[in-house]
């Protein structure tokens, strides 16, 4: 748990010697609490104080990184239970599971499809995060062969699933130079697994059996064997057990500062689901509620796209909506007679409108107003997208010089402001467009100057 300025102050020499560059020890303590200064700036700080401050600075949920040659997944370091309290920082990895018993052709096909999958949303490219490969066969040689085949086809981080340390060892020989997650140590094999993870300096998942006390004791043993990079599988599988375990683990780490369970969590939504559709909604639960690595049993674009979208939504910083630069945007090659549309600078609103205008094929001007990143209705309610704001933007971006006609199309959702806008923009005619962006192509087809 981070210390407050006053708690830090108690650990400082309290001599106000100013050698740190701040006028008093209290001022320095406040800067330390705000992470705007480094403790090293104080030449007189005691060793005990250093140790206490370092312990307090340790994140309550450890950051765990797994990587391939070119890509990595980082999870952990979360600080809040609810995204509105600050934000969620490290989005969970969405990984696709393959098994060494699958026919090779099928195995390779899934990998190729999932690894090359890319879908665009609000100007960002969303991808599958990695793969989990499972040693179902029990044969170390086959496992190693398949891990090698995976590496040859996909440069994405991996989770190795096996109960057998010998199979793990064989597979690791094919993954030199990368950092996979080893899954998993349980009450029977933890010593050998911990030894293996330590030898190769890799993170290790510890699997419990729906009992957090037993899990904490297992983690304690693994830590005593010298491991620091741990991932938890509480062992719950059904919808309600998983939600409860994940919530309790997050609370224990954040609110009780319970170090033994202060690690990211790996989940397997397919193992608790009766159908493919249920796996997908459970994966959604794990995105919203504290999953770190989410291993999916199937890869299908029709469900991967919604999951990637949900992850993007939940992990958007609530204090910083994604915004577009206000201004006049051109679509096609608009002329002085082309339609003029207007909308807000909330990225999602912009991309919805832009997508439809593009698909209509009609050259257009789009005036993106500074609405402080709010969507149309919200911005209107907050006074960030009213007649005054739109009129100001028309003047600020010299619209009258670019466009010969005097017609502006406003979103149908704010039809009520059309009268006021005509008062603000003398000589202009205000047209009310469709309420939803999806209806723009039909609307634009009928538009004429």
């Amino acid at each position: 748990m981070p210390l407050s300025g006053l708690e830090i102050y108690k650990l400082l020499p309290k001599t106000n010697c100013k050698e740190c560059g701040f006028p008093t020890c209290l001022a320095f303590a406040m800067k330390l609490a705000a992470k705007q200064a480094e403790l090293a700036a104080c030449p007189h700080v005691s060793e005990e104080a250093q140790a206490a401050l370092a312990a307090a600075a340790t994140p309550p949920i450890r950051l765990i990184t797994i990587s391939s040659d070119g890509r990595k997944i980082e999870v952990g370091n979360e600080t809040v239970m609810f995204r509105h309290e600050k934000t969620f920082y490290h989005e969970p990895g969405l990984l696709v599971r393959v098994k060494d018993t699958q026919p090779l052709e099928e195995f390779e096909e899934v990998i190729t499809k999932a690894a090359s999958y890319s879908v665009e949303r609000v100007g960002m490219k969303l991808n599958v995060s990695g793969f989990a490969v499972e040693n179902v066969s029990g044969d170390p040689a086959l496992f190693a062969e398949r891990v090698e085949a995976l590496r040859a086809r996909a440069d994405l981080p991996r989770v190795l699933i096996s109960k057998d340390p010998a199979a793990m060892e064989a597979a690791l020989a094919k993954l030199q130079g990368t950092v996979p997650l080893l899954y998993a140590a349980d009450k029977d094999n933890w010593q050998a697994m911990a030894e293996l993870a330590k030898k190769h300096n890799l993170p290790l998942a510890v699997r419990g059996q729906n009992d957090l006390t037993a899990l904490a004791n297992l983690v304690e043993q693994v830590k005593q064997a010298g491991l620091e990079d741990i991932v938890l599988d509480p062992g719950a599988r059904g919808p309600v057990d998983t939600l409860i375990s994940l919530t309790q683990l997050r609370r224990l780490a954040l609110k009780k500062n319970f170090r033994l369970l202060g690690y990211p969590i790996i989940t397997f939504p397919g193992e608790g689901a009766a159908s493919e559709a249920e796996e997908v909604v459970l994966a959604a639960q794990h995105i919203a509620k504290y999953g770190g690595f989410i291993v999916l049993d199937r890869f299908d674009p029709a469900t991967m796209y919604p999951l990637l979208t949900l992850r993007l939504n939940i992990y958007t910083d609530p204090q910083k909506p994604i915004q577009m630069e206000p201004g006049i945007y051109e679509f096609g090659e608009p002329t002085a007679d082309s339609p003029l549309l207007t909308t807000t600078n909330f990225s999602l609103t912009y991309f919805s409108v832009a997508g439809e205008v593009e698909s209509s094929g009609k050259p257009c001007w789009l005036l993106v107003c500074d609405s402080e990143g709010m969507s149309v209705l919200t911005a209107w309610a907050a006074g960030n997208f009213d007649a005054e704001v739109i009129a100001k933007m028309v003047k600020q971006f010299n619209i009258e010089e670019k466009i010969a006609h005097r017609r502006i199309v406003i979103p149908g959702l704010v039809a009520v402001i059309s009268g006021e806008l005509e008062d603000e923009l003398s000589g202009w005619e205000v047209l009310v467009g469709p309420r939803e962006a999806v209806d723009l192509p039909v609307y634009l087809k009928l538009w004429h100057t």
Partner: protein
Amino acid sequence: MPVTVETPTEKWTGSVRKVTLGATAEQGGTRARTVTVGGETTLPFLHFEGKMPNPPAIAIEIQDYYPEDWSPLLKEAWGEALKDPAIWAERAEGYGADLITLRLRGVDNEDNETTPEEAATTVKNVLAATGLPLIVRGPGQAELDNELLVAVAEAAKGERIALGLCEGKNYRTIVAAALAHDQLVISSTPMDVNLSKQLIILISDMALPLDRILMDPTTGALGYGIEYGYSVMERLRIAALTGDTMTQQPMICFVGEESWRQKESKAGEGVPEAWGDWAKRGVTWEAMTATTVLHSGADIVTIRHPETGEIVKGLIGKLMAGS
């Protein structure tokens, strides 16, 4: 020394209000059963620290006239039933809905404005076709909403239907109709905790008891602002559990309307290949939106596709296990 993990529970002091929709013959109505939502003393499905006495309810949305503008996937799923709200309601009940949400479109398929008499007749027909409690929403235009919902409230006297939507600029007439005919209302505000509280206060100031008010915090669809709705709902629910009385209404989310108007659900052609199979994507979009709001406190989800109903009902059943 083995360590012991103590279950980390929160001590909540407040609870969500219980609201009952529908009235049986004994209670002066004609419903086969009533549906009670609310009553939680903990966050969604955390049965180890509090009670969730009533499972979230699934409402299936029907409309009074053929929904020409709906996604072809929905038209295919419902077929001819879309042309007759009574048949549609009966089918929805067959699919396992707990409630029916009837949306009045405001115009028929020839663009003639709906009259109060027509709205009243539709409501009576739907009530006759199903034993489920009813929610009725106006077309969303203040004047017409008032005209139609007053007639609906009267036509459904004794049935304890929920009327909506009461909004900041238009709630008085709807609340008065609910008072006069012993109905419930839905208070709706655009994704804001304070606006939501404010409207509940205004409605209860008109002497409508709080156990007759549902709260619509506004739902964004997956990919279209769901994170705003999700967080506002979490804040409202935490406020309710910490004792803020004007946030303790059960929440209703119009998931179907939001997710099925998005391009991902509506469009089968001219979309990126990475979007995958259209039919599967459409249902997943709605089911995932519903799942997300259920985890932030939804007490009623109104959906449109029967397959979504099946997925969400199964999930709710499992999430309630151990309650």
